[in-house]
């Protein structure tokens, strides 16, 4: 039987190595100091170096072991969910909570094919309204409800 390396371990090891190296590289300008007077660069450098070593160990161990491969990434749900969140973050300041919740719901529902548009519309409207009531009216979170420049409903503000 052919040897199948443990790609999960190799991938994780590579990721840890990359993060550790990034910490060492980004922190290269910070003063390291000495044990009695540690600079801001001391601790991150130590942790970064340890992480590189651990990552290498994990990857090497993974390369020597047989294991099932990584299950395929589900790009569509990932992009829909993250895209919805990013869209929400970008739109909430100019457009307000109602519009950005609508956008988040519509984009988030693209995660899987075959969800009906009518249901999406009703769900988005319900969620926008409910979150407005819950967070702005009930919980009094100071979040803009309507787009910039629109006078908001007097009894809410």
């Amino acid at each position, binding site marked *: 039987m052919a040897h199948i390396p443990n790609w999960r371990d190799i991938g994780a090891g590579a990721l840890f190595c990359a993060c550790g190296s990034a910490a060492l590289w980004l922190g290269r300008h910070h003063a390291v100091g000495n044990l009695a007077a540690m600079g801001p660069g001391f601790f991150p450098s130590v942790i970064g170096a340890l992480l590189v070593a*651990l990552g290498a160990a994990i990857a090497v161990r993974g390369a020597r072991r047989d294991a099932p491969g990584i299950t395929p990434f589900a790009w569509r*749900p*990932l992009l829909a969910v993250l895209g919805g969140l990013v869209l929400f973050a970008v739109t*909430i300041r100019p457009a307000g909570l109602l519009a950005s919740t609508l956008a988040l719901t519509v984009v988030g529902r693209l995660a899987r094919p075959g969800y009906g548009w009518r249901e999406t519309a009703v769900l988005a409207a319900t969620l926008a309204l409910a979150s407005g009531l819950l967070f702005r009216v009930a919980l009094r979170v100071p979040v803009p409800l309507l787009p910039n420049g629109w006078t908001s409903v007097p009894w809410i503000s």
Partner: protein
Amino acid sequence: MDLLNNLGLGLAVALTPANVIYCLIGTALGTAVGVLPGLGPVATIALLLPLTYGLDPVTALIMLAGIYYGAQYGGSTASILLSLPGEISAVVTVLDGHQMARQGRAGDALLVAALGSFFAGCVATLLIAMVAPMLPGIALKFGPTEYATLMALGLAAAVTLARGSMLKALAMTLLGVLFGMVGTDVSSGAERFVFGVPELADGIDFVAVAMGLFGIAEIVRNLEGTAADAAAECGCPTAHRVHWRLPRAEFHRAWPASLRGTAIGAFLGMLPGGGPVLSSFASYMLEKRISAEPQRFGRGAIEGVAGPESANNAAAQTSFIPLLTLGLPSNAVMALMIGALTLHGIQPGPQVMGSDPRLFWGLIASMWIGNLFLVILNLPMIALWIRLLSLRYRLLYPTVLALCAIGAFSVGNSSATVLMTAFFGALGYLFLKLDCDPAPLVVGFVLGPMLEENLRRALTLARGDATVFVTSPISAGLLLMSVLLLAAAGNTARRPKRSRKVAAATPASADEPAR
């Protein structure tokens, strides 16, 4: 007697009408949100935290504690009825609890979970009242040296609570420490890993890390296969079978398990980094090991519900001890509690009990009241929870997504937290694919900065002499415990093959978790 005086003071604080009402509201809301799949105690508290902003500190903390117990119990309800654990510790409850539900014994399982939790809560409350006053004395012996090794112990414990490879868990902890370094360095004012982004100068918000790694990543995972909709839309065949009578034989099996679970949970909850997660697993392992018929476990053994549920709740209570007496968060929930306390201008630590006895004893008394509310609220409301849970996943996940987005935004009233949540969501999904448990990362993220700060102070005081960590007896003891914990974890990690054989010998437990 001191104990009675203190408890009396606590009850006087906790029983003011406002505090009782907020405790009730907190428990009810916590259960309502915690019962939703994917929303464990951390997410629930993060979401409901803004509710407490305007309250008096004592009331706010009492309400938050109510939310915590409620969320935890809500998670158990979801695990038992639908096999949808909302958090890691509820996974244990699924094993036998959901089997009981499938056999039409959902009522028994829910009743045992509620009563076991209540019993554990009562015992743990008394224990806290007795033990807590002794702890600040110990706490005063804690200098930077001891705190630094205590943090190291917390990190070591974080490694042991993860599933899977220990090396990976260790690396995840270190990665969490690095994420904790982002922002302005307290001692020197230097900005580390900020990339010139002003929003990063204050550091990464904990809510973004926790919600992204657990909540968002889990949503994407659920949307992967066709199983997601099937699992969430299975309807509830057991709903009409809910009843309250517990057969005598079952009761006699349940109560000793509950007693042992309480003891395990109360002890582990006090250890930083251990907390409820570890305790429910430990209790389940113990019950299975000492049982005369271990083959019943995984097929609806009532001890498998009573023990872990009691342990879970006892640990939830005693995890307040390190927080209130040492200012140490023993898990992610307590880290949130620290945030809530500082928000109200209270610096958690040994001085709280002396400077603010109303807060301290009021909280302890309200623990008991909160547990009472849990029982009263939940037994009659199970039918309602079931209806909430039968929401179709294609409607449920956009709702959870919207709640996460708005929750993240409201933390600092800034879009940056939402973007960070998305980033950690992507990272969390990658970790899922790479078989890396995110729990140690979260603990590292919380404890890392504290470890650095105390390490620096300790070494500055010792003029760079690193031997102080071994010459201080407390510090040396803590270091020894860390080493033992890691050694024990390394031992169990090297035995996966044997445990697989055990699982194969009991087919019921092997096929169950897949559901």
